[in-house]
């Protein structure tokens, strides 16, 4: 199997490329591909179940020097509450626009030719038309509205007349947290639904304590404060306490009551374990299906293709686990000339990364002779290697004529069913990637976060050695997506290095097409 290798050192955030190996085509492509966009907020994908912005974005006007106040009743309540808002002294027969202040939140990603970095969030404050009113002869008005499904926390409400904020009110959209079911055997999936996560930094992260053990973090940035996620019931028969805590970045902010945002304090929930029905079978929970909003994919940029090429290529499937069989059809190639199919990937790691950290590699998948009509039909096997975004490239005459992105999904390999207490055991998975979005999994044992495992240096194969602990019976091991916020590290990148419990509905990678699952595993501990 032929393989070309291009040494691409990663120094001080800039790529330095040096060609090695037999095929120059890869190096040419990568040099061109290095001209990519700077880190930028990414348009949030449409997430099923998440509320849309409830009204049109409008100009919130400019503050008056003689700002009055509005009366809002109630002004501390959840979304969906009927609310009355009124004002006085605004001038007779004035047309009043009520503007609800809120925000749009997007993740910031840096799509590079050989990776994707996660840089945090971008919050843009906006005003949304809430209602209109006309004052009476005394300058008063009163209208009712339904508190919108929006980010939680404080929302200023302005009465705007002729572009001027003449009076202000406010509404605290309360956070609600519910679980379902509330009882069941060990391993029962517990669905937690949260409405009213905030948009400001210190209101935008929740974290979960299960019997005072840290399970992970939750966000709802691209879902307008709404999310739903699953944890599993662990522990002995009896009552267990799930605390949904306010947080700022990853772990609970335990005295939120003393913070400037006290309404993000903990919500205590209770689950009763009824029995131990044995270890559930291994399963994988995938995020919701969304349409990615980023056109750029890791190592898959249109600039890799020879500018003169008009060839096209198609795969009968563009996503799957390692070793998937994929049919390739290409057209518009030079007739009667051999063509090769190659796989793009990288080799390296981020550990102690100060010099050369990873290299681009191309792996030949197959070859054939193009027909007289310029078409090529063949099949390839997806390599057993790194997961994430790659490309199948059609190479002819030393040039990339066409390419198609392919996403390698994570897969499960093994976990033992029964382990003696105190003995080690191995969890194996494959298809782990290398970007800051997908190079690592976070591991919890009975809902307690115990560490992470990286798949970059081991080429997508992750072998985690754990120790069986606890009383005889069922114990749960969950592997969650994790945002690797090291090497390189960026300031203010929340949610890094901990289990992303809310991965299924709100995660930076969704916009870039990263389909990252949770693994739901279990063992039976015996004496």
């Amino acid at each position, binding site marked *: 199997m032929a393989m070309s290798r291009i040494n691409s050192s990663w120094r001080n955030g800039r790529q330095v490329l040096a060609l090695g190996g037999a095929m120059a085509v890869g190096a040419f492509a990568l040099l061109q591909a290095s001209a990519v966009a700077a880190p930028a907020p990414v348009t949030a994908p449409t997430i099923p179940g998440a509320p849309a912005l409830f009204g049109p974005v409008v100009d919130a006007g400019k*503050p008056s*020097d*003689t*700002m*009055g*106040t*509005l*009366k*809002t009743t109630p*002004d*501390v309540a*959840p979304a969906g509450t009927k609310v009355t808002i009124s004002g006085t002294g605004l001038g007779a027969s004035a047309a009043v626009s009520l503007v609800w*202040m809120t925000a749009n939140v997007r993740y910031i990603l840096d799509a590079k030719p050989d990776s994707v970095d996660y840089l945090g969030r971008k919050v843009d404050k906006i005003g949304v038309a809430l209602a209109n009113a006309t004052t009476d002869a005394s300058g008063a008005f009163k209208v009712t509205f339904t508190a919108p499904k929006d980010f939680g926390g*404080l*929302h*200023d*409400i302005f009465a705007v007349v002729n572009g001027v904020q003449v*009076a*202000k*009110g*406010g*509404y*605290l959209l*309360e*956070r*609600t*947290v*519910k*679980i379902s079911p*509330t009882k069941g055997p060990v391993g029962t999936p517990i669905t937690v639904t949260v409405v009213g996560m905030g948009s400001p930094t210190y209101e935008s992260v929740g974290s979960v304590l299960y019997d005072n053990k840290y399970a992970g973090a939750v966000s709802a940035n691209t879902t307008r404060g709404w999310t739903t996620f699953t944890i599993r019931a662990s522990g002995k028969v009896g009552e267990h306490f799930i605390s949904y805590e306010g947080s700022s970045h990853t772990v609970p902010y335990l005295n*939120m*009551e003393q913070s*400037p945002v*006290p*309404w*993000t*304090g*903990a*919500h*205590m*929930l*209770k689950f009763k374990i009824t029995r131990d029905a044995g270890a559930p079978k291994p399963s994988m929970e995938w995020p919701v299906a969304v349409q990615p909003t980023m056109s750029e994919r890791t190592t898959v940029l249109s600039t890799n293709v020879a500018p003169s090429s008009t060839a096209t290529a198609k795969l009968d499937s563009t996503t799957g686990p390692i070793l998937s069989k994929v049919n390739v059809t290409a057209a518009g190639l030079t007739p009667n000339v051999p063509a090769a199919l190659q796989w793009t990937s990288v080799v390296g790691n981020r550990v102690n990364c100060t010099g050369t950290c990873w290299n681009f590699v191309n792996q030949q998948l197959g070859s054939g002779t193009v027909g007289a009509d310029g078409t090529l039909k063949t099949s390839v096997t997806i390599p057993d290697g790194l997961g994430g975004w790659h490309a199948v490239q059609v190479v002819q005459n030393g040039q990339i004529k066409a390419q198609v992105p392919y996403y390698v999904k994570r897969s499960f390999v093994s976990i033992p069913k029964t382990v003696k207490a105190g003995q080690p055991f191995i969890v194996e998975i494959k298809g782990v990637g290398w970007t800051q979005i997908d190079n690592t999994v976070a591991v919890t044992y009975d809902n307690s976060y115990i560490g992470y495992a990286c798949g970059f240096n081991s080429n997508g194969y992750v072998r985690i050695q754990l120790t069986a602990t606890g009383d005889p019976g069922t114990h749960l091991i969950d592997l969650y997506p994790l945002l690797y916020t090291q090497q390189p590290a960026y300031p203010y990148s929340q949610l890094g290095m901990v289990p992303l419990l809310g991965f299924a509905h709100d995660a930076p990678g969704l916009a870039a097409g990263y389909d990252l699952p949770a693994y739901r595993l279990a063992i039976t501990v015996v004496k």
Partner: protein
Amino acid sequence: MKRLMLVIGLAITACAILVPSLASAADPPKKLDVMLYVDTVNGSRPVGAKPRPVGCTQTNVYVRGEQQVFRVWGSVAGSGDILSTENVAYAYVTVPGTPNLKLNWGSHGSATNKVYFWTAAWILPADYPLGEATAKVVFKTEDGSFGTYEYKFTVVPQLKTAAKKSTTVKSR
């Protein structure tokens, strides 16, 4: 007095930094007549809320029912004279939806550590709008010098403090 001068010095520095950022690109440079330092502290006599464990501490977040005390130090830009009843024609604070608050000059602190500055206090009503509010401090001197300072603060509700055992809401 040494402490007061230090505070004023810091205030002047703060104002010097702050003022350019307040001006929009289209605004012409403005002459500074008066330098102001403004902060607020939680008053020790709230009417509709529990007193905080420590009174008179600086904060910009207020629970409804608490007492907000504006504190102002200032000087005349040209002469460096301290703003006091000796040279101030009027001084007040505007707060949305509330009659203007008159600033009073007086001494504060223990008998051995008296400090003079301007103050104005008010109680946030139980139904005062939640969210961010902007107060405006206004000074005019006897010789016509004029100065203002915008001060933002946040109004939050009184929240229950007990955790709920149910599977729904409530802050603990």
